Every structure is written in structure tokens, then in C-alpha cells.
């Protein structure tokens, strides 16, 4: 009958699963609920195991948020980028702190006075930067409507590039119907060639080349420089005044008799006047490079505050020198203030306990709360259940959760007494 009958003492102490007796698995809770709470002569006469499992998981998640103890934590050394990726199963943090040399945590406080907004790429005229072509570029979405992949070329979606697989002379990667190239205007092309195999410079005849080209007004080709090796290239070409303006197209052309093998990416073709001004958030850059006020002498002497005792309006949330952070939910990262660089930081956080099968377990202090939660959830969602029964289970659930919370708060009489002794110091002297 005993729950430990199956485990020998020796096996327990030699194993790695210490302290597991305090927990009961979610699968056991579901099974036990089905056996004891569901059936003939019971208030819940019928319930799908699937429904019970759903409510059990919901109960586990909800209780994880504010009843169970927060046990998850990650420690990192903050790199110079001052960023930390949120954990895989992160739902919210309970505490973020840096650790000093003797292992004591110093609390970091969240700051709401900064952020990491998306920076719009602008041109010199302060308008929105809009290149004529932006293909396979991390900064832009590729519009493939007008792209034609010629023989020996193919899109590589995984690496966001176009692969030339032994493309023969004349093979093309073409953009048709692009904005007409206008006379007397200069166009800047930037692109990256990669994966070109090593070529022996001594045998020049065997060198494979690829040439970016665009049509001028008379259908004549305006070529950029032919390339044969890996690299990122930027080049400007001007359409001469003798040209007119009609249908325009742009393409990468294999211009050697030798077949070309390689990949092209980060393609941006824009008017030379329409060059990008900035990429990345200036707000974040400022926060990253700023020096925390707490590290300056502003608060230590009266240089900044010349009148003694005149620090009126000091905001307690900013009156600390530990450092600050903010969480960018969009990028899933924590950004730290600059004084945390190189420090060991601990992120204590909560999850919903549903990430892995192993963590789907409940402390025995909260087992009853789980049953009551599931029973109430099922009864309240079922038709033709008298309201007084639903209310009864609602009260029972509430009482069980309160009991679980009280037990899990781990209040011990002796420890509490010791804390209260400390509190009475002021009264003593």
C-alpha cells in the first residue's frame, strides 16, 4: 500500500532523482481524477479524459504563475552586446539580479523609460528608403513576382540566397518590369557573392564570371563589373543622356565560357540619391552606450546637487546603482544597462510547467488544489449542472488553492521568529 514500496533506499540514493517524492506527476493526477471523481453515483458522471487533461494542464499553468514556487533560473555572463536571450520556456521573470564575488545577488530594476523600436531605414531626403530591387537581403522582404530563375539557378530558401549550380554561359537570374531606369541618373548596386570554389589565378581562361547588367533605353546592356570571386561589391553605374526610358530589367548574367558556381545574396539596387541612412535602433544604441547615473558622482557630492538636503522629488525606482534592464518582447531579449557588462546575471523566471513531460508535476501540497480546479472547470463547463454545485466547487477550489499557497510559502515558525527578533532592534536601543 505504501507509495515507496517500489523504491529501495539504495536505488534512491544512488540515483539522480532526489526529492521527487514531494511531487506527483500530472499523468497520475489525471488518472486518479478519472478514477475517483468521474463515474456513476458521482457528481461528474461522465468526462472525457481529453477534457480532464486539458483542464489539468490549464490548472498546472495557472498555479505555476502564482502558487507554485519559482524554481527556474538561468545564469549568464553579460556580453559586451548587453543582451540576453529569454529562455526557451520563459513566461515572465520573478527577479533579475547580478551576482557579486561572494555570490550575493543584487537586484536589477526594470526601466520603462527606454525601448528598442524598429528603426525605419530612411534616405537622405528623410523619406523612406525604397530600393528598386531588394533580393535575398536580411533587411528586406524579397518580392519574387518579377524574378525569373534561368537554367542552373535556383532559390535557396534556407540560406536566403540564389544558388548558381554550374550555370553555363548565358544563364540568368532576371528581374523584369522593374522601375524604369532614367537617363542621367546613377544607380548603386550592392551584392554579395559566396560559395565560389577556389580558382587558380594562373589558368585565367578557366575563370567563371558573372556580370550584373541592366537595360538602357535602347535595349543596350549597361554592365557592372564582371566578378569571379567571393565578396561583397558596391558599384555605381550612370545611364547616359543619350538614352531614353522604357521597359527596364536587371539581371545577373554568366558571361564566361566556364560554368559559374556560387551564390548571390544581399542584392540591393537603388538610385544613388536613395542610399540608406541608418539601420538599427538609435534608442537602444543610446541606452547601450550610456553610463549609469549611479556610477557617476552626482549622488555622492554636491556638484550636481549644490544645495545640501535638496534632493526633492528623488524617484525611488531610479535611486539605485545596481543597474537596470528592459525586456524587448518582440526580439525576445533582455537588454541591460552598460554597467552590467561582464557581470554574472541571474534570471529567475516562471514558466507554465508545460514545456516538457518531466516538469509536468505538482507539489503534493497543491495536489488537492489540482483536483478541485479540474472538478470545478468541468462542472462549470457542463450543461445542466445546478449552479449551487458549481459554486460549491468554486469555493472548494479557492480554499484548496489558498491552502496550497500558504503551505508552499514555506513559513517556518523558528525562521519567522528570528526575522522578527531582527525587526525589534530599533525598539531595543
Amino acid at each position, binding site marked *: 500500500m505504501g507509495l515507496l514500496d517500489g523504491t529501495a533506499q539504495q536505488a534512491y540514493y544512488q540515483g539522480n532523482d532526489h526529492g521527487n517524492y514531494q511531487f506527483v506527476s500530472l*499523468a497520475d493526477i489525471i488518472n486518479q481524477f478519472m478514477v475517483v471523481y468521474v463515474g456513476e453515483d458521482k457528481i461528474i458522471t461522465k468526462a472525457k479524459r481529453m477534457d480532464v487533461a*486539458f483542464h489539468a494542464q490549464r490548472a498546472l499553468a495557472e498555479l505555476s504563475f502564482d502558487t507554485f514556487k519559482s524554481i527556474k533560473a538561468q545564469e549568464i555572463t553579460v556580453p559586451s552586446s548587453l543582451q540576453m536571450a529569454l529562455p526557451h520556456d520563459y513566461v515572465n521573470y520573478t527577479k533579475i539580479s547580478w551576482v557579486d564575488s561572494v555570490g550575493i545577488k543584487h537586484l536589477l530594476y526594470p526601466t520603462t523609460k527606454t525601448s528598442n523600436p524598429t528603426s525605419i531605414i530612411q534616405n537622405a531626403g528623410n523619406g523612406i528608403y525604397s530600393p528598386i530591387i531588394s533580393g535575398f537581403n536580411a533587411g528586406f522582404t524579397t518580392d519574387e513576382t518579377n524574378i525569373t530563375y534561368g537554367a542552373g539557378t535556383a532559390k535557396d530558401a534556407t540560406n536566403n540566397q540564389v544558388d548558381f549550380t554550374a550555370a553555363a554561359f548565358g544563364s540568368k537570374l532576371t528581374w523584369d518590369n522593374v522601375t524604369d531606369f532614367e537617363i542621367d541618373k546613377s544607380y548603386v548596386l550592392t551584392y554579395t557573392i559566396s560559395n565560389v570554389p577556389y580558382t587558380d589565378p594562373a589558368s585565367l581562361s578557366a575563370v567563371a564570371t558573372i556580370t550584373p547588367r541592366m537595360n538602357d533605353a535602347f535595349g543596350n546592356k549597361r554592365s557592372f563589373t564582371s566578378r569571379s570571386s567571393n565578396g561583397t561589391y558596391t558599384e555605381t553605374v550612370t545611364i547616359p543622356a543619350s538614352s531614353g526610358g522604357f521597359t527596364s530589367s536587371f539581371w545577373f548574367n554568366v558571361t564566361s565560357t566556364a560554368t559559374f558556381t556560387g551564390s548571390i545574396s544581399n542584392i540591393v539596387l537603388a538610385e544613388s540619391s536613395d542610399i540608406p541612412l541608418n539601420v538599427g535602433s538609435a534608442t537602444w544604441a543610446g541606452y547601450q552606450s550610456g553610463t549609469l547615473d549611479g556610477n557617476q558622482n552626482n549622488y555622492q557630492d554636491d556638484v550636481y546637487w549644490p544645495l545640501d538636503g535638496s534632493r526633492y522629488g528623488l524617484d525611488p525606482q531610479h535611486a539605485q546603482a545596481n543597474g537596470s534592464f528592459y525586456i524587448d518582447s518582440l526580439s525576445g531579449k533582455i537588454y541591460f544597462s552598460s554597467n552590467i557588462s561582464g557581470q554574472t546575471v541571474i534570471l529567475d523566471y516562471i514558466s507554465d510547467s508545460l514545456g516538457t513531460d518531466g516538469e509536468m508535476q505538482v507539489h503534493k501540497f497543491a495536489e488537492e488544489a489540482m483536483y478541485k480546479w479540474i472538478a470545478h472547470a468541468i462542472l462549470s463547463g457542463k450543461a445542466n449542472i445546478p449552479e449551487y454545485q458549481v459554486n460549491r466547487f468554486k469555493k472548494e477550489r479557492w480554499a484548496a488553492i489558498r491552502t496550497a499557497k500558504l503551505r508552499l510559502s514555506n513559513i517556518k515558525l523558528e525562521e519567522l521568529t528570528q526575522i522578527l527578533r531582527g525587526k525589534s532592534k530599533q525598539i531595543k536601543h
Partner: protein
Amino acid sequence: MVNIDTVYQRVLAFANKEQRGYITPQEFNLFANQAQLEIFEQYFYDLNQGARIPGNDTEFSDILSLLGEKISVFEIERDNAWVRSVMATVTNGFTLPPDMYRIGTVRVGTAPVEMLTSKQFNAAILSPLTTPTAVRPIGYMVNAGFTNATIGKIIVAVSGTTYALPADYDINLSYIKIPTKAVWDYFVVNEKALYNTNSSVDFELHPSEESELVYKILKFAGVSMAKPDIMRAGQGMEMAQTQQEKQ
């Protein structure tokens, strides 16, 4: 198990074969199986009816326990070896047992499969909190769309993308089988049919159903012979018994 010869002799006695008419073995066999199936099918509706009353904890008198005992005669457990050899694998599932009357519990290992409708199954697969797992598999049963319409298939999923097949998983099940056809067989001696105990097949029903079998067969025989008094007698006795059982 109810001895078929006992039932036949009682029916003949009730029918007073010399005065009212003889019930041939062929007729008896037809009526016997009709009666057996009627009683058998009624179990499931009686179960539902019995579940609505409080019941009691006294031995041998709780209606649900009694019905459970009667049905358990037909309940069969099949292990994975049997499932693999008899229930053929078809697309994403496996065929039903050939002698199945009603499905009981399908299990993957020790985990019971929750049988749903195909609509519920598809909805459950899509939701992260209801998607099946190895310890909480779900499944559904289909009968239509097969070349042989009498054979359906069971589909069991152990994850959002994995179907459990008997060859890969320990699939075992319990079900209620179809009652074996009762046969009163005979050989002819001096132009009389004598009971052949070796080739006859008894009723599979619980022994407590013996008298109800007699009444039902008598009722059918009365209809067949156009003897309303026999029919009414059989019907009356059957009703009296039912009333006694369900009061």
C-alpha cells in the same frame, strides 16, 4: 452458457406439441438466435437505465453489477500478438476484430485510448493542450468507405503526427463479441429427430437467461404457428419476468 436442448424441450412442452403443433428444429434454431440477440442487445439499454438509479452495495442485487456479469460472458481481451496477426494494418490504422459487436477499450501499452468522433479527433489534434501523447492516446473508429462494409478500422494517434500501428506499438484491446449462433442439431432415428450433443451449439448467454429464452422462443413460435394463445402466454410470462427484474 444455457443448454440448447433444455430450452428446446421446455418450449416443446409449453407449446404442447401433440395438440397445438410441432416446432421443427429449423424453426427453433431461427427463433433461438432471434431470442438470444434480443436479450443480448437489451443488456446495453438496461445498462443505461440501471445507471440512472442509485444502486446498492449488497452483493448479487445491484442491477449494474448483475448486468456487468451477464455482459462479461461476451467480453474478450486481445493482446498485441493477436491484434497483429488478426487485425490487418490499413492506412493510418487497423481493421476491427472480425467478431466484434461493440468496442470496449483500446489501449496503447497500459494507456487507454480515448475514442472520439472523427470531428473531435481532428479538432483535438490541432490544439496543443489536447493533442494526444503516448500516455494519453486518442482514436476514432470508421465503418464506411471500405470495400467490405462490415469491416471498419480504428485509428489511434499518440502524437499530433504519429499514428499507432500494431506492428510498432503494443496495441491491445477489449471488446464485446457477437454471440455465437446457437444450433440445436440432430440425427434421425426412426424418423424422429434426436438431439446430437456433439454438433449442437449452446446459447452463450448467462444461465440466468434460460427462462427468458424459453418465453421469447415460445412467443415467436406462437406467431409462426398462428396460435395466439401460445404467443400471448409467452409474451405474458416474458413481461412478468421483466417486470420482476426491473421493479
